[in-house]
């Protein structure tokens, strides 16, 4: 009797401890992966204007907000809410990937045949149908390829695996590129020599109003 009363708590304690550990791990995993729960699926707003400085402002909000493979929503607190996501894995974290950032900044439609301008709120969860390679090929109604020397502010450079937008054209011959570079780097602006890199082509979007 005594033995039973003394021995019984051990497995119970172990069970409770295991349960709490599993619960905390699950909670931590959910908290880490749940940024996109704060995003929405609101319809985009059809807009009649699309300016290049407006595009710069839009990308500025995305800076410091992290990177998410296949992602497309972020807030504006200058913190990556889901750091260290696994590479090349969609894990519902904060930020866009390179092509998602270009898609939203260029106010494109999720329907490739539509050439209009659609404002996507930063917290709207959308990536768009284009990969970096597709932008490079000028796929989609609004997109086209640009001779590299003509690439201007908010035009871009795309390779088979990456795409970024020109924020400033620097006098050195390089450019200030705003880009969602990768999980380890996030989304920010860097000086890049894509203009002289043969693996990159110039890309543009029809429809800028100024």
């Amino acid at each position: 009797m005594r033995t039973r009363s003394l021995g019984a708590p051990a497995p119970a304690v172990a069970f409770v401890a295991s349960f709490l550990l599993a619960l905390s791990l699950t909670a931590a995993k959910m908290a880490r992966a749940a940024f996109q729960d704060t995003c929405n699926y609101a319809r985009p707003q059809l807009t009649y204007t699309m300016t290049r400085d407006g595009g710069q402002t839009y990308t500025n909000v995305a800076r410091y907000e992290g990177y998410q493979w296949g992602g497309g929503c972020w807030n504006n607190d200058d913190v990556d809410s889901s750091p260290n996501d696994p590479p090349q894995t969609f894990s519902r974290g904060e930020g866009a990937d390179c092509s998602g950032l270009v898609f939203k900044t260029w106010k494109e439609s999720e329907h490739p045949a539509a050439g209009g301008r659609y404002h996507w709120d930063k917290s709207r969860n959308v990536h768009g149908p284009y990969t970096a390679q597709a932008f490079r090929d000028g796929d989609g109604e609004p997109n086209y390829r640009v001779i590299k020397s003509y690439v201007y502010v908010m035009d871009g450079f795309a390779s088979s695996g990456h795409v970024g937008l020109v924020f400033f054209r620097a006098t050195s011959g390089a450019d200030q590129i705003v880009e969602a570079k990768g999980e380890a780097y996030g989304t920010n602006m860097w000086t890049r020599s894509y203009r002289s890199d043969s693996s990159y082509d110039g890309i543009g979007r029809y429809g800028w109003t100024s």
Partner: protein
Amino acid sequence: MDQLADRVEPRRSRGAARWALAAAAAGALAGCSDGGKVPEFLLDGSPAPSAPQSVVESTERVVMTRARVSRAALADRLVAACARRMPGLSTATILVERVGVSGASITFRPRAAPHLRGCDRSGVPSESGSPWCGVSIGKLGSGGVTDPRLGILCRDRAGGNVAFAWVNPSARARWLGVEQERYVELYRVAGGLPVRVSSRAGVKLESSSATFRIVEFAADGARIRERELVARVAG
């Protein structure tokens, strides 16, 4: 027959029942129109090959796709057009060419490259006039491609979007079945490469994603695994 095959046998019958039910339901729905027939021809107009009897025994409404493994014939019009959009092809490159009902593809791995490349077509040329409406590059890891590299830019002649994705087959898989709206499209695993599959079902433009319902068959027709692949446009 090894032990693993024996163990999955019960799943085979359950899975077969579910797929048969799905096919029957699709057929019943299609019965309201004239679209209930299983396609007899592939995208290029050729008749669909006969499906393996071992698979047909467990799955109804199967349409067999065509797969060919060969060295790249750069004189071929389609191969040359793919090479123009996706560099890395030479006469020494081994290609896997596939033709399905709504999509066709070329998959290849440039020599010693850590990635796969490929071209997709759906019968409607790209805006630039290429017969290939999509191209993809996929990074290779130990288990195949690390991402399915979904492409949803191709459209069929009716204007619907056709999704393409690479699927990593398990080691024992000899065929992959992809559930379409009214039939199951069967792909032969070939060339030791991931299988580029296509589908008109499950494409969601609003989330830039597509869902593929896949069943893997072993050489004896046993169902090895069923799964749902939700692929997203990325990178």
